[in-house]
């Protein structure tokens, strides 16, 4: 055999070729970048993280002031991202479960309503939905002088929602002060739009995942459980749900990661999440490479941690095959 027809030789040559092409591409791109940066007189480095950020973050769950450092601004943005992701994931799971139950009923009215909801929310872009909710709050709701007051202590205005807060001394009701409401819980229009939009959108997908999982368990399983004398509730809890969970968990994981990724759309309505902080930082300091590096690092870390955690859980509930 001719030496260049040898399989081992070909394998090694191909791999060397692929690896050097890949590394070459990366070197070419970084070389260009370095040349461009040098030409524009930009320096690369993470020193800026220790400087004062000097831009406001309108709302955050961690305390922040513009005199804080850039690294803290990033942390605050990340805190907001994680906060909205977690509460949206919880809300959407509950809503999705309700939706799945609704669509599994014999009631044609319930089925129709569930199907309409799912088809509508899944077949329109999330950005359009977010912008709609944002406009609904900021344009559609009345001014603060004539708030919508559907329940005592609940005020809906163009500046956001004012709700009673639960504190140590009982209910803390919002009270109208000279310019604004004081006390209670204030949800900004940006937060309301993000929370509503992301939850309603994700619920449509989660509902379908749960319904699909329940339907994928063969009907014989439930029938057998009933034939063995289990009560319908037991059949559901002991036979149907444990089997459905195995099917539901993998797509659920990617759905939760999707919620995290979709939360970056906060940039569109102006909720200060991590991408908002990154964009503002790049605007202010011109440190585009570093800003993007941090953003990528954050997303890769969260995605990997989530999928590892879900894989561990998945291997616990997975079918034990001998």
């Amino acid at each position, binding site marked *: 055999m001719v030496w260049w027809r040898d399989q081992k030789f070909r*394998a090694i040559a*191909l*791999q*060397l070729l*692929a*690896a050097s092409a*890949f590394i070459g591409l990366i070197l070419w*791109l*970084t070389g*260009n*970048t370095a*040349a*461009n*940066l040098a*030409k524009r007189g930009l320096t690369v480095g993470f020193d800026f993280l220790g400087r004062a950020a000097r831009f406001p973050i309108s709302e955050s769950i961690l305390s922040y002031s513009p005199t804080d450092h850039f690294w803290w601004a990033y942390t605050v943005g990340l805190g907001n991202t994680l906060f909205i992701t977690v509460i949206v994931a919880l809300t959407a799971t509950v809503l999705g479960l309700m939706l799945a*139950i*609704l669509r599994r*009923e*014999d*009631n*044609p*009215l*319930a089925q129709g*309503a569930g199907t309409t909801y799912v*088809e*509508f929310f*899944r*077949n*329109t*872009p*999330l*950005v*359009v*939905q977010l*912008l*709609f909710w944002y*406009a*609904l709050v900021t*344009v*559609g709701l009345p001014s603060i002088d004539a708030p919508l007051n559907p329940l005592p202590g609940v005020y809906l205005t163009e500046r956001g929602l004012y709700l009673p807060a639960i504190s140590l001394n009982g209910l803390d009701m919002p009270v109208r002060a000279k310019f604004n409401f004081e006390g209670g819980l204030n949800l900004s229009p940006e937060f309301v739009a993000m929370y509503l939009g992301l939850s309603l959108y994700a619920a449509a997908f989660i509902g379908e995942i749960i319904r699909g999982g329940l339907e994928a368990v063969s009907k014989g399983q439930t029938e057998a459980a009933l034939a063995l004398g289990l009560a319908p509730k037991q059949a559901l809890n002991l036979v149907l749900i444990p089997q459905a969970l195995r099917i539901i968990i993998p797509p659920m994981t990617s759905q939760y990661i999707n919620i*995290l*990724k*979709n939360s*970056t*759309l906060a*940039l*569109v309505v102006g909720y200060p999440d991590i*991408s908002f902080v*990154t*964009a503002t930082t*790049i605007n202010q300091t011109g440190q*585009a*490479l570093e800003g*993007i590096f941090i*953003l*990528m690092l954050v*997303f*890769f870390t969260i*995605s*990997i941690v989530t999928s590892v955690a879900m894989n561990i859980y998945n291997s616990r509930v997975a079918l034990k095959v001998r």
Partner: protein
Amino acid sequence: MTGFVQTQPIAARTAPLAARYNLFRVLFGDVLSTVSTLAILFAVIALAPKLVSWGMLNGIWTGEGAQCTGVGACWAFLRAKYPFILFGIYPPGQYWRPIALIVIFVGLTLYSLPPKNWKTSTLWAWVIGTVIALALMAGGVFGLEAVPTDSWGGLPVTLILTVLSLGLGFPLAIALALGRQSDLKAVKYICVAVIEGIRGLPLLSLLFIVSILLPLMLPDGLKIDKLLRALVAMTVFSAAYLAEVLRGGLQGLHNGQGEAADALSLSWWSKTRLIILPQAISKVIPPLTNTVVVMVKNTSLVLIVGLYDLLSAGRAALADPAWPAPFAETYGFIALIYFIICFSITRYTHWIERQNLFGVNR
């Protein structure tokens, strides 16, 4: 021997009583259905009159911005602004060109739907159709006035981004998916790194990164416009997602197929082209069409890099101070266009799932 064999047919029996469909029982049979029926009826009774009076009875159908007082829907706004929302800032005298593009793309899509039209000539029709459509949009040829991509907008941009990102992403996706399955470790890990790296990032960040980094990473003097940058981001994004769908098809393929091809001493190239890919792709056609829906919806994200797609054009129209910003009507109109496109593809997916293509047993 006396026979025990029945010689006379048994007389026909009456059919068992079918359970009668009882609407009342279906709607109010148990607590759950009663609650949901009442809740849905309540919602309809509470909302429907408001919607009718807002949209129909008090709706403003013609006139100027001053006539929209906010009591009813301002349909006059859509009547005045729909060319802008659909075509962006494209020169109004030249609207036939974006319309031609829409007709070409929709026509090609409709032609490609039935499986009997899935052949090489259709692929060529797409290539030629796309080139003609883009040439019409850009102008500068056939004596047409040149229109720079900065002036493109609305629905054509949405369609161009969808078609090109999927069309260019698909060959890339095949390469990535095959690479990921490869026995060559270096090739495999490069493909895994590329696929997972892109899938780990939100598309929004990817658009953002490409629009900032691409000008930095290319040699000085090489200018790429906004549309092309967005297209690069969307293409690599769709390639990574399509590659994962294709991987499902490749993994679902029986090992014997490849082994049989090897036994027939087909080369790797012929084996992949003639045996592996046709079967792997036909297995994953429904999830592939799902990815199309995802990409159609994702085009709306390009507003972040300042492109005038359908949504950005709608937002720009809302900013007109002569009108009272009827957001519900505008976003409803845009959502409806997306819904028509995506819902049709979803229905098509369901239909294609029911066809047993190529006798592939699932």
